[in-house]
């Protein structure tokens, strides 16, 4: 099997380039708090401003974790470097008949960007979890909102981090939600631990296809036969393409990879 090149996915989350639209998938809510806190903290370190649109609970958790990391959240807020908005209130402000309205969305988000810029911050990191609030009951609306974000990012040239509580190694999430989410982002970070995720999928490939040289060849063919427009780890690209080639085998690999990933190696 091929060796796994270490992919700095943590870097993709912590230091996104302007206009990048990164999605972090997670199963553990604590991981989300860690990731977002690091994302914000790295922004502060680089002299960037941060706008967080999250639930009340998450906003409080992020603030606590940032404080634990040594950030003076109150001071950041006072000088206009840190703005945290309530995700539910924002959603209510631009949703019409269960779908996000472009004009209202722009009207809700843009003033905050303008306000931050006025305080002297040109680089602004965005974090939003309104899509995750829509996902369970209105997935199409969530995807539409991603498209609106994408338009805004292209215009504003600022990075955005999204987060979805979905599991790429779950049959339904992996086959239905992950491809749709992946298509609407520039970078996909599919799991809490990128290296472990890569290793789990590789082990599952060996279990399903055998441990011979052809399996390595087949994995490479799977990864490359249909290039993904989104930047993602090799293992995630393999899973998406394998689903396209044969969804049953995609499921088989996902199920075994999930066991490896969660430590239940057979």
């Amino acid at each position, binding site marked *: 099997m091929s060796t796994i090149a270490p992919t700095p996915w943590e870097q993709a989350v912590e230091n996104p380039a302007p206009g990048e639209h990164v999605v972090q998938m997670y199963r553990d809510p604590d991981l989300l708090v860690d990731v977002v806190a690091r994302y914000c903290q790295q922004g502060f370190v680089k002299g960037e401003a941060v706008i967080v649109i999250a639930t009340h609970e998450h906003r409080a958790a992020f603030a606590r974790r940032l404080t634990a990391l040594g950030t003076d959240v109150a001071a950041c807020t006072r000088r206009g470097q840190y703005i945290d908005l309530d995700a539910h209130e924002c959603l209510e402000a631009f949703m019409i008949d269960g779908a996000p309205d472009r004009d209202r969305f722009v009207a809700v988000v843009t003033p905050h960007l303008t306000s931050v810029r006025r305080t002297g911050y040109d680089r602004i990191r965005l974090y939003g979890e309104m899509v995750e609030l829509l996902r369970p009951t209105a997935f199409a609306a969530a995807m539409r909102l991603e498209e609106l974000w994408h338009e805004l990012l292209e215009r504003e040239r600022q990075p955005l981090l999204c987060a979805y509580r979905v599991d790429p190694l779950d049959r339904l999430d992996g086959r239905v939600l992950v491809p749709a989410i992946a298509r609407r982002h520039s970078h996909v970070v599919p799991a809490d631990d990128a290296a472990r995720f890569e290793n789990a999928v590789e082990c599952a490939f*060996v*279990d*399903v*296809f*055998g*441990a*011979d*040289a*052809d*399996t390595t*060849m*087949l994995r490479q*063919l*799977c990864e*490359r*036969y*249909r290039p993904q427009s989104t930047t993602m780890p090799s293992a995630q690209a393999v899973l998406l393409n*394998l689903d396209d*080639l*044969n969804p049953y*085998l995609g499921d*088989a690999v996902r199920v075994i990879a999930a066991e490896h990933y969660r430590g239940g190696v057979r």
Partner: protein
Amino acid sequence: MTSVTLESTLRGGDHLCAIYETDDEWLGTTVPYFVEGLARREACVYVAPQKNTAHLDVALRAVGVNVDAELRRGALRFATPEATYLRPGRFDPDVMISLWQELIDAAGAEGYTSLRVAGCPTWINDEVPGVERWAEYEAQMSERFRGRRVIKLCEYDRRLFSPTVLLDVLRSHPFAVVRGAVRANPFVGMANARAESDRNKLDDDLADALARERAARLAAEAACRKKDEFIAVFSHELRTPLASAVVAAALIERLSPTDPRAVTAREVLGRQLDQARRLVDDLLDIERVTAGKVELAAESVDLAQLVRDSVAGILIPTHRFDIDASPARVMGDLGRLRQIIGNLLTNAMKHTPAGGSIRLSVGQHGGEVVLRVDDSGGGMPPELVGRAFEAFVQGQAPGSTPSGLGLGLSVVRRLVELHGGRVDALSEGLGHGSSFVVRFPAAPGASPEATPAS
């Protein structure tokens, strides 16, 4: 009539039988029985058909019994079956036992020392309702009145009763009158002993049967487990090449035929389907070789060249092969010899990490051609060396997952033996690699040359 004395050995609760075949025998028992009873101030009751009663009456009078006086005072009574056993219109043991109890009580109330009963139940030969419970009744009479103030004598005319009935009689009466003397009935003891013996034997047989059943069940369960394990392993081993083939086919379908990736996918497809075919072939070969269905088309084959060809035919060399082979001819089936070498190579590659070395040597030593395959793989523990050629046995390097059906080496051994040769496995233990040495008879006329495979 032969007069006999029943003596005073009879005690309350005794239950006797007398089987006779002449009237003399009958009266020779019954008359003294009642004479003694009357002398002991017992209330005597005789239950029998009228004809028997008449005969007894005469016989008693003949020995001096004042029958009329005894009848009058109630010390002697004659009764018919209809008035006793069959009084309810059918025979009912419970009713009869109750009647005897009443008579015992009445005798006691009237000052008699005991009740003495005799009877000749010829009526049981008739189709009387309830008669099928007669043997049960006789057995109950022994049990219910044991130690009570009643003595019972049951008379059976051998000429009137079937052997089955007589056997039941012997089994249900603790005492028998034999040649005029009361004897403990050996049949009852024998019957009890027999029953006990039968019961013990039954217990032993049952225990044996249970042990046999348990052993058979455990063996069946073990076989079933082995079968399940085999099916699981076989399914897995077959699934992997088929899964690869399915994905390769899907890639071919989606890519342009001239796309280099499609070319690679076609190669993968071919190899994986061939791998699946080999698995099935191995499985079928085991059965065919075992059943003697494999016929060898013998020809002179240079084993050294065959080894070189086999290594050259490996499409994706993942190991380093060192070949030291001098011409060595054997008489054998080219296809089967190729299969032997192929299986040994596959085994060596499977157990040697990619990049490891595998050494093959072929040479003639005297009348033998020796093929040796040495790998630098995980080796075998001593207990596995002796079982390496058993079907479904496979080694597993520590930390690795088992793969294969464990049939390859088994097929090798059987094919080698079909060629008149033998194969041995060697290993100095885990981590020290394994060696397989095959010896074939050299082809006639072949002369030994260089001898690398020592």
